[in-house]
């Protein structure tokens, strides 16, 4: 005696309608953040692009539309010699500081891997430059490098004008920047080293591998993602360097330390050419954007562990 069951009625899931307040609430939480980003990041980025197509007056008001003329001026026109010089200086600077910082961080973290008395102290010292302001440090460096009363000339027994000598100024700025960058390199590479599994070293030791072999065949491959990540950070930071050059060399001698951010600063705030300065800024933006995209892409693929 089976009664035919009525086909189950489809019940639509009861949708709770959000109140108006519930709809806008997430945006209320976001409001302060979005305001800051809109006013001080997206708007000025747009404005920089806009300005880069104009000739401006002394106060930075856009006056005459020039299309791509500002870009042509810096890339292949009346300011091109100075622009390409600053690009070339910046690229060399970035190369030396990124690799130098990496090597310095690798050395300091490798020598503090094993236990020894004073390890904690040494580690703290190696990390310390992260807390040091480049502007305050520049004052010390200025004294150390002073021609007649500086420490460096005293130690070496020379009397070189380190901050205006055409040969030495560029390497000195690189070395000081590496000194300042060494802390962050030490921290990240050190963290990478601690993540290398001990078993790998143990089995290598049993197989009779020596220190250098282990370094080359285990340590370096294992920390290669960290090294890659760190060199990107170094490159991005180095492209944005400004303080040391502003305080120590003013871009000199003969524009040999005229880094791109400093050239933007000069163009805008010394020569009041806001249009070409904006064009330079866009070039800097594009460079950093491409490097960051490379990093994002690589992080997704996440090299190998």
């Amino acid at each position, binding site marked *: 005696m089976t009664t035919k069951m009525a086909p189950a009625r489809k019940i639509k899931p009861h949708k709770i309608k959000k109140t108006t307040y519930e709809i806008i609430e997430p945006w209320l*939480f976001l409001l302060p953040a979005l305001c*800051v980003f809109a006013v001080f990041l997206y708007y000025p980025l747009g*404005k920089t692009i806009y300005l880069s197509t104009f000739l401006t007056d002394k106060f930075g008001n856009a006056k005459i539309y020039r299309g791509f003329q500002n870009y042509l001026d810096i890339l292949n026109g009346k300011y091109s010699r100075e622009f390409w010089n600053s690009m070339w200086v910046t690229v060399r600077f970035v190369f030396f500081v990124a690799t130098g910082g990496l090597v310095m961080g690798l050395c300091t973290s490798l020598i503090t891997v094993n236990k020894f008395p004073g390890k904690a102290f040494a580690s703290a010292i190696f*990390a310390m430059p992260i807390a*040091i302001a480049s502007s305050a440090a520049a004052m*010390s460096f200025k004294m150390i490098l002073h021609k007649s009363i500086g420490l460096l000339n005293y130690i070496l027994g020379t009397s070189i004008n380190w901050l205006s000598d055409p040969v030495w100024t560029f390497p000195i700025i690189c070395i000081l920047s590496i000194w300042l960058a060494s802390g962050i390199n030490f921290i990240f590479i050190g963290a990478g080293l601690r993540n290398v599994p001990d078993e790998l070293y143990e089995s290598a030791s049993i197989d009779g591998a020596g220190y250098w072999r282990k370094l080359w065949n285990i340590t370096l491959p294992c920390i290669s993602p960290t090294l890659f990540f760190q060199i990107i950070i170094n490159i991005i930071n180095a492209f944005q360097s400004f303080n040391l050059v502003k305080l120590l060399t003013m871009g000199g001698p003969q524009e040999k330390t005229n880094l791109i951010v400093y050239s933007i600063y000069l163009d805008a705030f010394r020569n009041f050419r806001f249009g070409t300065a904006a064009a330079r800024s866009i070039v800097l*933006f594009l460079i950093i954007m491409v490097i960051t995209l490379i990093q994002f892409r690589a992080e997704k693929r996440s090299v190998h562990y």
Partner: protein
Amino acid sequence: MTAVTLTRRQRTVLGKAGSILLNIPFVLLIMTPLLYTFMMSVMPAEELYSRFWPTRMDFVSYLDVFTKTMIPRHILNSFIVAGTVTILQMITCSMAAFSFSFLNFRGRQFVFMCILATMMVPWEATIISNYLTVSKWGWLDTYHVLILPYGCGAMGVFLMRQNYLTFAKELHEAAKLDGCSNWRFLATIVIPLARPSLGALGAYVFLQQWNNYLWPLLVTNSDKVRTVQIGVAQMYDIDSESIALMMAAVIVTLVPSLSIFVFMQKNLINGLMAGAVKG
């Protein structure tokens, strides 16, 4: 058997001695500029040009920094600016991160990508437009021109969101059933739980602001709001009276940042690790 253990022990001792020997030159390399700065700051005036290791320490320059220069005012300004930015970022980043991790709304992913994308924009590339904007608004030489542009950061939002995502969703649901509003939930439950991340964010932001140079250089031109990095950089002068004074000022400005480094090292490093996404 004994021979083996002996050599092994000898090897560890040798290894440790080797480690120490290897570390010394590197430690010296990093320390020398700071030690030298300190030495110069306590050098009695009559010994200044003749030696690098003072025969006695003379702390009068430190007294002078606090009584004869504008540095105390600059330090106060820096504390006001860096402190306010730190608190502001803790609030704005917590709120934004809460929205991204606990609330569902249309366009969430898109807005989050927009915020992440700001990491690709170097501050230096927008600095001209920012300068022109704030000067048009008549904001130059004020505290808020130093504070508001740094009122939020992608790195902070990202750091806090990563932290919130580890919290159990049930926590939020339970609170909602009990009639707890989202605001109260954020303030009384989420934020106390997220204290370590907030500490990391705070240490990182404070240090970044304390050491900030380019923006304050552009937008301040009086001692009223000028921050300490600008103040110190202005003191450069190599006549005998000024050297010790300048070096003492450098040391004084390093004290707050080095204190953060020493006492909040772990927080700071966590903050840096999160911040390094931007660099």
